[in-house]
């Protein structure tokens, strides 16, 4: 198993280490529920160094990326990022990722840890066939780069103590808390340049910090020291999963895979069909016009039950009940105190308020389809 630069820190903090996508990562430090609620109420600090970073630059970079990613990169100013997907010729998802335009000609792709090899192989193959390939430079910086996510409503109280001052490029801001959602900028920190974006995977306000691997431990320690008086706690992959499930963010390998399209996953907003040609475009256009054969839905259990889990069967309710799909992500929701999840069903069933049943260890328990996101912050 691979280890991030924070492995020793995770051990020191009492992290319970498990295998995730080939990496030895902390699933929790104290308890998943406690870490989850801390992120919603104060702040949590996540090691996301296992994720991949690919740098693409050159005069041909925009054209190259825009014909292999589904969202329209031309919308991005320097210092801006967007959620996007990379599809194969069948419209199936190779990965979901964030693409940032760092400067006019330089891009950073933040990719899933479990897909680094597959993504880089695909990018290199696509580049080899790209007519303007001499105008594009591609660098897999994943091994040398680390990253942290600091997420929660109280992050703004302490993050400027760690990263004081203005950005040194990208989106020009006087302080890091002036970054708007999806903006990214370089900041100087102890003589190093690092990138900070106002993004995250929890449904809370927060930032992600991308830095050289050998600086990550020092940044983590400084953030933790600055944040602890404001309620900051380390948070592991268990809480990361319950947080993102509550707000219905997809996880590759669950809601997304090479046989599932962004249209089926309800991510059509991130597919710019009219931007010009890109890999998978014709399949996605047809699916958008005709409708997909399966649709991602969110559900909530309606009674106390054992937690719904991935691969549990989804049944229709009432007379003639039949199995109609499978759970892709499911958990006991720490914020809502009830079982929740997502899964694919035929479009005829994919409406909010449709009652369904989830088969949990041989018994069907009642649930109802709900609009996404399942958890919404109280106003």
């Amino acid at each position, binding site marked *: 198993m691979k280890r991030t630069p924070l492995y020793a820190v995770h051990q020191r903090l009492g992290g319970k280490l498990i295998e995730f996508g080939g990496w030895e990562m902390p699933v929790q430090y104290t*308890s*998943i*529920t*406690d870490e989850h609620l801390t992120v919603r109420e104060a702040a949590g600090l996540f090691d996301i160094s296992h994720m991949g970073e690919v740098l693409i630059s050159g005069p041909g970079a925009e054209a190259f990326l825009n014909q292999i990613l589904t969202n329209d990169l031309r919308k991005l100013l320097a210092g801006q990022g967007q959620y996007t997907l990379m599809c194969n010729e069948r419209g199936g998802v190779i990965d979901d990722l964030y693409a940032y335009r760092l400067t006019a000609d330089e891009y950073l792709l933040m990719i899933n840890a479990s897909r680094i090899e597959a993504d880089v192989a695909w990018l290199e193959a696509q580049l080899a066939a790209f007519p303007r390939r001499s105008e594009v430079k591609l660098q897999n910086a994943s091994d040398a780069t680390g990253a942290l996510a600091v997420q929660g409503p109280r992050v703004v109280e302490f993050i400027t103590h760690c990263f004081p001052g203005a950005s040194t490029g990208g989106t020009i801001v006087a302080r890091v808390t002036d970054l708007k959602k999806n903006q990214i900028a370089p900041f100087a920190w102890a003589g190093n340049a690092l990138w900070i974006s106002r993004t995250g995977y929890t449904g809370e306000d927060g930032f992600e910090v991308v830095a050289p691997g050998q600086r990550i431990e020092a940044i983590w320690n400084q953030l933790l020291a600055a944040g602890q008086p404001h309620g900051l706690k380390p948070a592991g992959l*268990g809480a990361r999963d319950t947080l993102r499930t509550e707000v219905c963010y997809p996880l590759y390998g669950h809601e997304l895979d090479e046989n599932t399209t962004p249209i089926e996953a309800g991510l059509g907003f991130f597919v710019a069909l009219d931007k010009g040609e890109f890999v998978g475009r014709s399949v996605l256009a047809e699916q958008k016009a005709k409708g997909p054969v399966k649709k991602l839905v969110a559900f909530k259990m309606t009674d106390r039950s*054992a*937690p719904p889990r991935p691969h549990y069967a989804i049944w229709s309710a009432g007379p003639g009940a039949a199995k109609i799909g499978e759970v892709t992500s499911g958990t*006991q929701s*720490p914020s809502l105190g009830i079982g929740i999840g997502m899964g694919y069903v035929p479009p005829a069933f994919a409406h909010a308020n449709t009652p369904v049943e989830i088969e949990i*260890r041989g018994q069907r328990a009642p649930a109802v389809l709900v609009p996404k996101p399942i958890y919404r912050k109280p106003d």
Partner: protein
Amino acid sequence: MANVPSDLKYAKTHEWVRVSGNVATVGITDYAQHELTDVVFVELPEVGRRIKAGDPCAVVESVKTANDIYSPVSGEITEVNQAVVANPALVNSEPYAGGWFYKIRLSNPAELNALLAPEQYQAQIGGA
């Protein structure tokens, strides 16, 4: 260090047994609850059910996993702990007290001799 009370007997599969006359109370150990972490659901056997030692008779679910609980002893279930159904977190906070699962009238008290003594269970879980 996991707590291993000296007045209980233990199964290799991390259940504990407290014997009082012919009735045993069964739960899971401090080591087990620590491995499981947040318990979110407990399914208990019905009162009156007869089970044999080694039968799966309850389920404990954490956020991440579902785990079968195997009865360390044979007999008839006389009582189940509704408190732990209503508040599964008791399994984590009070594994030997409020987090008990069921009481069982022993049909074969000799089975208790096959269970582990506290020192033996402590040795099994190591210095954990």
